[in-house]
């Protein structure tokens, strides 16, 4: 790398941009952490390049290769959805989102101010003048200090210490053991249910309700203004015959389009909602609902291939061959899925 002579551990401060989330991250390279991972749908994002330039790290295109997690200074992502936004924070890697993302989705709990900042442009990346403590090991310190279940003394052990040894002690222990076990069983059941409820409400507030608000506004506008009718006239000849649907699936599965259309399934969700409104006004026959579901979703996950592979602990070579393999495969399987779905929708 040309920045080799500047390869000292200089810190940069990345602050949130307008509408962004977070307090800002202080990033610096150290012994092993020397790479800035750019997971932005192919190529090095200018923000990643800027961070790399200022810290003396190397910018790596995360779409074509993987880097071991412990070599990554920071990950630069362009996630407007809910998946990638949480993957890197979950691994404890500081994450810079170039979109104005905020904690949401199933991994929202990992997206903390210590690890995440969003709406970042190159202007938000500045050399750090203050020498604050480096931001690292966020999740390690954030984890509660409760030892794992198997290291904690079991309730039976605790009960056994109460009555001491002897025959009476044994009987007493076996009786209380049953009660203690029952009691702790109920306790853990209730706690699990409560935690599940909390997780659900969190997800509802942070992900589902915002999406519903946005979908309602969109639906309200298209129905009130009559755009829905107009769209129906344009769409129904395309979407109500199998050839038109196969054509849609082919377009969304084009290898250069599919990674752009993928993030957060945002586009598939909007098109799904709009198609649903067409079904509701009768512009699109119900029997085409099934092939439509596959036609609008030929690009599913195409933006996420390297990250998904990295989650499966894939090696860089696998990402290099696997990403194009998945994208090319969709050219075959996306239209095929529509045809199968069309054949399966008779009698609906």
């Amino acid at each position, binding site marked *: 790398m040309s920045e080799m002579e500047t390869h000292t551990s200089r810190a940069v401060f990345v602050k949130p941009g307008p509408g962004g989330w977070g307090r800002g991250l202080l990033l610096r390279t150290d012994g092993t952490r020397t790479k800035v991972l750019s997971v932005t749908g192919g190529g090095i994002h200018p923000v990643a390049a800027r961070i790399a330039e200022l810290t003396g790290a190397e910018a790596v295109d995360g779409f074509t290769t993987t880097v071991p997690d412990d070599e990554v200074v920071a990950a630069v992502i362009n996630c407007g959805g809910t*998946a990638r936004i949480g993957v890197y924070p979950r691994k404890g890697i500081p994450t810079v989102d170039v979109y104005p993302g905020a904690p949401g989705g*199933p991994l929202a709990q990992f997206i903390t101010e210590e690890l995440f900042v969003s709406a970042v442009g190159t202007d938000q990346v500045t050399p750090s003048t203050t020498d604050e403590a480096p931001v690292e090991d966020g999740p390690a310190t954030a984890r509660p200090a409760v030892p794992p279940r198997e290291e904690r003394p079991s309730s039976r052990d605790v009960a056994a210490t109460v009555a001491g040894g002897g025959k009476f002690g044994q009987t007493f222990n076996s009786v209380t053991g049953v009660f203690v076990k029952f009691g702790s069983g109920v306790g853990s059941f209730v706690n699990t*249910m409560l*935690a*599940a409820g909390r*997780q*659900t409400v969190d*997800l*509802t507030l942070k992900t*589902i309700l915002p999406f519903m*608000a946005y*979908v*309602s*506004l969109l*639906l*309200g506008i298209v*129905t*009130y203004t*009559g755009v*829905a*009718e107009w769209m129906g006239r344009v769409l129904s000849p395309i979407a109500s015959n199998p050839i038109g649907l196969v054509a849609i699936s082919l377009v969304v599965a084009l290898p250069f389009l599919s990674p752009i259309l993928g993030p957060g*399934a945002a586009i*598939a*969700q909007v098109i*799904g*909602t709009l198609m*649903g*409104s*067409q*079904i*509701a*006004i009768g512009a699109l026959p*119900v029997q085409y*609902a*099934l092939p*439509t*579901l596959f036609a609008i*979703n030929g690009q*599913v*996950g195409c933006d996420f*291939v390297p990250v*998904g*592979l990295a*989650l*499966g*602990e*894939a090696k860089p*070579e*696998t990402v290099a*061959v*696997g990403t194009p*393999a998945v994208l*090319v*495969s969709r050219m075959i*399987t996306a239209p095929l*899925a529509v045809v*199968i*779905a069309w054949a*399966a929708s008779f009698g*609906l």
Partner: protein
Amino acid sequence: MHVLAVMAQQQPAQPEGETSGGVLGVFEWLGTHFIGLFNESGEQFVGLITGILPTLIVLLTFMYALTTFIGEQRVTRAVQWSARWWITRYTVMPIIAVLMLTNPMCYSFGRFLPERHKPAFYDSAVSFVHPVTTFFPYANAGELFVWLGIANGVTQLGESTVPLALRYFLVGILVIFIRGIVTEKITAFMIKRTGRTEVFADFDREFEAAKAGGR
């Protein structure tokens, strides 16, 4: 819905008569339609919240609790078993992965596969994250509207969504199976074409050694 759409079509005709009232008429027209737009959106919002949300919340709670009770450890063995054969690798394995670990952590089960099968498993698993939302919305609760958007339209026609949901789910399984097979073949082709045959042969040996060592 149909009535509203018809009303919406007629609206542009209305203002012609009203605007003759001068400047005030224009503002009246603007005011009516500005608030009308959001009233309509609000109705849509209430429809979604009362129609979908209550069931969704209790179902999510139940399923999150269930997956916690079952635990990741217990399914690991089933996943390792299903990783062995090509039929189960792109049907049972991604289904268990998506149901137990949900999107996006489900892809981490790829670690039980040799390198050459990982892209195909990913393709298979990621293609299941929307069909799964028909009966198990918790597995991908952040991306419900691919299915719900379409299903909502069917509901508004007064028809049951269950037959459609069942077919989406089943065809989904068939599609992820085909996708797995096709992507596996294309990955093999890419390995050969980019001259990485040796590298991947090494990976296979490493994988076998790790598996033998793990037993």
